[in-house]
């Protein structure tokens, strides 16, 4: 680990001031950045601890929730309003990492955690455009079972590893940020980006921008929602694929639906094509499959991950079938 200065931010203004320098990085629970610093993938010379900033979860005037960026993952998952009104979010968080890690991890840090591509971590032996721009991508023709099938580029096939973010994408969450140029909000789907020829950039945040909170808009039918994750062991493993979905029935037809996939792309993948196929249509297994197939029409599988579109299709179809009958788990 390269040496750094540790500074604790007293409030948002202080964090923004301390975070503007080149080489500064914010510190949440440290569960990702400490590991990356140890591997010398990240080499900040200043860590600005933002765990003292707002961690409260409050009702908003429009009937949604505002979650402070320093809220721990456990605190969000166990919050009564999240459990009852946004069960897909509780479930997504509980499907990730371990209890110890969820107790440490903050909301801000979870959003900005970096890919688990093994070539990204392998500073000694591998080429990686995300870690060292311009060096190449050893994953593209390497061991790429966990990699992207949608929206990847020649430069990068990494996936975003967060479970929580998949639920936030389905919910149209709004990200509140503050930085050297002031405060602004970002639609969740516009926070993370596709790799293109700049895979070193995970998000649309400007340098020095701090995440201060996440707003969950009210969504009545989010109470009828679920999260399912498929992984190589039953617990404590990252997703191969995952699905967050919320469904509203209108008689025996689909009234409205929200779907996002995890483990398939460089960003949490909001499935707008699948949603459009389903909205107003019949609630049948064939319709669920057709919707997923529409979403994965542009999939470009790699050597080891051709199973992903079909796996995601089956999981989505099973989930929607359950949600149509009001089965949540």
């Amino acid at each position, binding site marked *: *680990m390269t*040496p*750094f*200065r*540790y500074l604790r931010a007293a409030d948002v203004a202080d964090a923004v001031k301390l975070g503007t320098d080149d080489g500064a990085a914010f*510190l949440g*629970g*440290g*569960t990702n950045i*400490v*590991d990356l610093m*140890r591997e010398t993938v990240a080499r900040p010379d200043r*860590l600005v*601890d933002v*765990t003292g900033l707002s961690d409260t979860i409050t009702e908003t005037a429009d009937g949604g929730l505002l979650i402070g960026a320093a809220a721990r993952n*456990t605190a969000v*998952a*166990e919050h*009564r309003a999240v*459990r*009852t009104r946004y*069960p897909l979010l*509780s*479930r997504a968080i*509980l*499907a990730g*990492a*371990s*209890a*110890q*890690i969820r*107790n*440490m991890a903050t909301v801000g840090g979870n959003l900005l955690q970096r890919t688990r591509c093994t070539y990204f971590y392998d500073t000694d032996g591998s080429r990686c455009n995300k870690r060292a721009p311009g060096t190449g991508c050893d994953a593209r023709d390497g061991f790429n079972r966990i990699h992207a099938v949608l929206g990847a580029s020649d430069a990068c096939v990494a996936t975003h590893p967060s479970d929580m973010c998949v639920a936030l994408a389905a919910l149209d969450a709004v990200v509140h940020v503050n930085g050297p140029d002031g405060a602004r909000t970002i639609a969740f789907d516009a926070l993370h980006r596709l790799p293109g020829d700049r895979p070193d950039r995970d998000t649309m945040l400007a340098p020095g921008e701090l995440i201060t909170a996440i707003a969950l808009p009210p969504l009545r039918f989010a109470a009828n929602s679920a999260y399912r994750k498929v992984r190589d062991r*039953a*617990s*404590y493993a990252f997703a191969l694929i995952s699905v967050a979905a919320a469904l509203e029935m209108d008689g025996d037809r689909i009234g409205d639906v929200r779907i996002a996939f995890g483990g398939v792309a460089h960003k949490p993948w909001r499935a707008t094509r699948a949603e459009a196929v389903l909205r107003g249509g019949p609630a049948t297994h064939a319709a669920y499959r057709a919707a997923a197939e529409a979403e994965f029409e542009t999939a470009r599988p790699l050597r080891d991950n051709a199973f992903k579109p079909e796996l995601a299709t089956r999981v989505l179809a099973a989930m929607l079938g359950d949600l149509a009958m009001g089965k*949540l*788990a």
Partner: protein
Amino acid sequence: MSLVINGNAVAGPSDPRVSLLDHLRETLHLTGTKKGCNQGACGACTVLVDGERILSCLALAVQYDGRRITTIEGLDAVGDLHPLQAAFIEYDALQCGYCTPGQICSAIGMVAEAQRGVPSHVSTDLAAGVTLTRAEIQERMSGNLCRCGAHNGIIDAIRATMAAEIMA
């Protein structure tokens, strides 16, 4: 800065790179807390901070200024052992013992979470209270790996002692 470790105020490290795990083991010589992977993947380094279980290998010690940290050395003992330690012996919940301090600290934190009503990945109803069934304990303890495969004994020991008040 200072940390309160097992009830004693101790100085923190002068170098902010030092993890809570290394500070415990290398500086304070509290070697009960173990280093398995040093990257968050095994749970051997689990300690309690203000009663919550965390991984000390991913924790920078400087971040824990003024916090109350409990390690395996600091558990309330009845005689020589904490009741869960005694149950680990009775139920063959270990072979080499390397994961054991982390398992025990984790189980204590786990029970507090369950009592508070924190649901888990296998809870069927998120809104209902927690019942610590075997499946629930398995999932809630999945952050602690045991290379010797003592998991079934570990769950038996937890069920026999800690989980009594919140079990079906």
